[in-house]
Structure formats: C-alpha cells, structure tokens
C-alpha cells in the first residue's frame, strides 16, 4: 500500500504541505478552528530540526515569524478570526518591509468571538484590507485536502517569489473535515527557494533596490551584509525617509509587484463551464456544495457550471469577466453576507446577472440552499 496516502483533517494537510514546502519556523497562539495546525507542528517541527514556539498572543506570533524569516527561514503562523484581527498590524509590517511569510486563517463565524466552532467565509475583505494603508496582498484558498496541500505549497512559493506575506484563507469545514490526502513525492511540486543577493562582502548591498524584474534579492540576518529593516517608509538602504519621490516609488513597487502578476498568481478550477448558461462561482468548502448541485443538474441535462476560485486576492477581475461573458445567470456561493459577490459584480458586464446564494448562520451551506436560489432565478419558486 502507498504509505503516502493519509486520512487527515484539512489542518493537518496544511501542516504536511508547509513542511513539504520547507517550513522550519512556526510561532502561534491557540484558537479554534486552527489549533490543530499548532499542535501538529509542535510535534513535527523538532523532528526535522525546525522550531515551534507558542507565543503570548497573535500579535507576538506574527512578529516572531517575521524575525525568523529575516534570518533565512521559511515561516508560518496560523489563527482564526479574533487572532487574525490582532495580526493586522504585523501583517502590514511584513507588507511594508517585504518579508516572506505565510499566515493561515481558518475562518470561523464573526464578528468578535462570534461562533468559534462554526464555519464562515466572512474574512475575505479583512484579508484584503485589514492592514491599514494602501497595499496589495495575496490570499489563496482551497475546497479539498489535496488542493489544501498544493495551494499551501504555492503560498510558500509566492511568498518567496514576491517577497510578501501570503494569506491562506481556509474555513472551519476544510480545517476540521477528514478526507483522503496523497502526499506528493519530493520534487513532484516545484519549490521556490529564497532569492539571495550575489553581492560580495565589502560591496554595498541595497536591500530595497528592486532589480529590473521588480524582485529584491535578500540577505540573511547574521550574514555578510548588515542593513536596516523598518516599517517606516524607507529608501533603498532600508533607512527611514519621507522624501516624496522615494515614497511614491516605494508605494508603486509594493502594489505593482503583485498587481502586475495577477495572471501568474491566479489559480482556479473549472467544472462544465464551457457552455454554461448558469455559472456558479464559489471557493473553499462552499464550492463542494456548489459542485454537487452542478453535477446533479448536469446529469439532468442542464447547462450549468462551476468556477472555483483558489486565488481570492489579487482578485482575478479579467478572468472572471471573460468566464462570465456568456452566462445568463451568475450565482456566487459563499458563507457570508456577500463579499466575493461584490468583486464579481465589479468584474462583469451587466452585473444584474449576478446573485448571491449564501448562508450566514454558522451552518454549512447545503446543495438545497443553492437549489432554492436557482429555483427563484428560474422562476420556479422555492
């Protein structure tokens, strides 16, 4: 029997993927429904010589992983709603100082302490705009454990490629549900290592001077280049400045390095979309119910399809616009009061085609919930 086949929770799939991607430093603070990630890593990391630390809160957790990333490690923290709120300050720091790191938010019901053990997808916009100030961000998600694995590896790869924090926006159902996972062999998924500077000792290294391709080679703390890192606006030396020209360049760089790569960052899956008159758009665990509906109705000959988003931010406006071009009805399936649906409405022509099928009570959205909306659209009544 293949020993790579496992029966695990989504949180554990995320752990296995992070280790596969090269994670060797984790700092966190327990919170449902993400806690299993910390628990598994406290056991698994020392086995490979990595480090796990339970911090005094989520603020400290994200700060600690930024510190560890600077010494050259692949780092992650994991949390949920209230902890994600506390992390926004550190997240902004990692964005400004361009520190590769991965932040997992296994979403639960909010606001506030909300519904600790129930599912929600209410943090989509917080992931986008939770940190103050203009910025860009990468946020990824998945609907099954095999995809949790590959998207988690992608998150580490993108964090290194773009020198940025990457958010993994899972949800309680994905985090806690158990299903089959086949752990890929080494080398099956390509890994991105840190891009380190080739500048020699004694030659000036400019930590914040982007190369022509926009990338910034790093140098590990403890290495031969000593430089400054700050959350203040800074020049190419990493030294604080409020020179308008330099600040303008920095702001453009921070946003453009992600926005100009939307196509490369965008991940999605399509099911029966080619001729779909009715297109469902969903993500995370909601996409499972959406797919169920699509497959049932396809079997009855209905022209219905599913577009499953894995990259939520930067939002793939152009891709969505194109995929929705021919659809008569577009139904966004999500467990919040309408977050991704807003972005979809912005993306498409004739936004009146777009409706929301949602659930906001902590219960998992079912195929019946979606079917009820479809019947309304099709004038059949509930």
């Amino acid at each position, binding site marked *: 029997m293949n020993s790579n086949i496992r029966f695990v929770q989504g949180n554990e799939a995320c752990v296995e993927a992070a280790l596969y991607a090269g994670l060797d430093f984790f700092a966190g603070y327990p919170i449902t429904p993400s806690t299993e990630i910390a628990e598994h890593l406290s*056991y698994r990391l020392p*086995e490979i010589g990595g480090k796990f630390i339970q911090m005094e809160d989520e603020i*400290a957790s994200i*700060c600690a992983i930024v510190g560890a990333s600077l*010494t*050259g490690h692949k780092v992650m923290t994991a949390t949920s709603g209230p902890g994600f709120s506390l992390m926004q300050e550190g997240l902004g720091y990692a964005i400004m100082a361009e520190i590769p790191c991965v932040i997992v938010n296994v979403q639960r019901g909010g606001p506030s302490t909300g519904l600790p053990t129930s599912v929600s997808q209410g943090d989509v916009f917080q992931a986008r705009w939770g940190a103050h100030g203009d910025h860009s961000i990468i946020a990824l998600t998945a609907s099954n454990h095999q995809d949790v694995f590959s998207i988690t590896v992608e998150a580490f790869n993108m964090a290194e490629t773009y020198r940025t924090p990457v958010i993994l926006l899972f949800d309680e159902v994905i985090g806690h549900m158990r299903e089959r996972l086949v752990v890929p062999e080494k080398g099956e998924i390509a890994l991105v290592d840190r891009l380190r500077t080739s500048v020699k000792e004694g030659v000036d290294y400019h930590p914040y001077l982007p190369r022509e391709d926009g990338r910034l080679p790093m140098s590990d*703390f*403890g290495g031969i280049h000593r430089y400054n890192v700050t959350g203040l606006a800074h020049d190419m030396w990493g030294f604080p400045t409020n020179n308008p020209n330099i600040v303008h360049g920095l702001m453009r760089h921070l946003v453009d390095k992600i926005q100009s790569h939307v196509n490369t960052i965008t991940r999605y899956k399509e099911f029966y979309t080619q001729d779909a008159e009715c297109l469902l758009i969903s993500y995370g665990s909601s996409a499972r119910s959406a797919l169920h509906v699509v497959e049932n109705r396809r079997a009855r000959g209905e022209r219905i399809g599913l577009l499953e988003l894995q990259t939520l931010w930067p939002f793939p406006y152009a891709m969505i616009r194109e995929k929705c071009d021919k659809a008569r009805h577009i139904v966004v399936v999500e467990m919040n009061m309408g977050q991704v649906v807003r972005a979809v409405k912005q993306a498409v022509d004739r936004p009146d085609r777009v409706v929301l099928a949602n659930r906001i009570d902590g219960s998992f959205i079912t195929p019946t919930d979606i079917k009820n909306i479809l019947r309304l659209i099709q004038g059949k009544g509930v």
Partner: protein
Amino acid sequence: MNIKGYIRERFFPHLWCPGCGHGIVLNSLLRAIDQLGMNKNELVMVSGIGCSSRISGYVDFHSLHTLHGRALAFATGVKLSRPELNVIVPMGDGDALAIGGNHFIHACRRNIAMTAIVMNNRIYGMTGGQFSPLSGYGIQATTAPYGNIDHDFDVVQLSMSAGASFVARTTTYHAKEMIDIFKQAILHDGFSVVEVLSQCPTYFGRRNKMGSAADMMESFKNNTTRIGSKAKEENPNLLERGVFVRKDIPEYCAEYDKIIGNAMKGHK
C-alpha cells in the same frame, strides 16, 4: 576598534534633541560591544518605535526597527531561529512597558538569551510628551495637564518577579558603569534587562521644571546610589543602581535544542 566602526555615519546626524540621554546609551553600548570584541555580523539590534528605538538605525549591525511595543516579539523570532546571533533590544519606557508590557513579561519568563535595554525617560518623547507607565504620580505631561494620577512600575521589581535571570539599573550620568553593566548583561546566558534612567529635556524636563539636560543628569547622580551602599541606609528614598539579579536557569534556545535532539532520536 574605533567607536565609529560600529555606526552608520551615512545616516547621521541623528534625530535626537540636544541633551537627549539616548545618545549616551548608544555611546556606552558601543563601547561595551567594542570591549567585548564582538563581531558585527553576529550582532542584531531589534527596536520598537519611539525616539529611543531610532537607535537601531545608527548602529552598523543587522538592525530591525519594528512596531511600537513589539520589539521583543520580533527579537524572539530572530534569536530562536538563529541562536548563535547576539540580540540586543533597546526600547523606550512606553514601548517596553505600556504597549509592549505583555511581550516584556513573557520574554522575562521565557528566558531567551538576549539583552533588553529600557531607555527610561519617563515620558513619550516621540509623540510629544504624554505620560508613560513610568512617569509616576504627580508628574506633568501633555495628557496629564492637572498632574498624573497613574502610578508607575518599578522596572527592576517587575522584571525580577516576571522571572528575568539578569536585572540591572543604571543611569546616563553613570556612563562608565553603564558600559560595565551592558557587558555583563550581554555575556549573561539568559534574558537580561537593563533599565537606564535617561533624560528627555525637551518634554519631561521642561514640563516638570527639571532644568537643563545637565541638571537632569545631576539629579540621577543625587537620587541614586549603588546597591547596598551606606547612603541607602541613611536615605531610603535613593534609587539603587547595579546588578540586582543574576540567576543561572535553563536558557530557552538551549532547551529547545534538547527537544530537537529527542524528537530526532525518536524518529530514527
């Protein structure tokens, strides 16, 4: 080495006001590091936000200027991920003990080998003179125009009860003593706290009619004494200076290495 070998002259002049005590702390710290013959590539300075925290920009070490209050949390990640580095964490009093108070006590308890320096000027300098948790009762500040009714912490006692394994206090008047204490703190194999009474003539001094920077330093001389001195017996109000605690307790990174050793064995 010439002391200039430890600073980034490119980033001078510094932003501190004339007479600010923070420059004296920088001076004593660099001399301590020089006397210890430390390798700059193995030195990391992590600071928070405040006038005091700007110190990290001026030193030619690996420097991490972080968020208000969070320096010790960032430093924890640096040190645990690479324990061979020497990590020094200068903080303002507000930085370390108001917004950063929780990180501070937990760092004391955890005992990761690094040196925390509280540059205590009893005021929020950077934001223009609001009271801090070290200002103390009766002090004038921009947010205490009727006199402060908040009581202050005693940094030394707080650090000791939170479990710090090395705790000391000195002042900017005692620059030579400060060098010596910094050396001991840096060499200590555990979490060390050094409180340095520093002067902010611009806000604390002016509002509280303390005179010039030199007058404020003079008051550090007159109001402090060495631990266990005769002067303290005669005048119990004097604040003691020196090393209060030096304990040999297991250091966190070394303990974690043992965990790694066991976990790896279990795996084979």
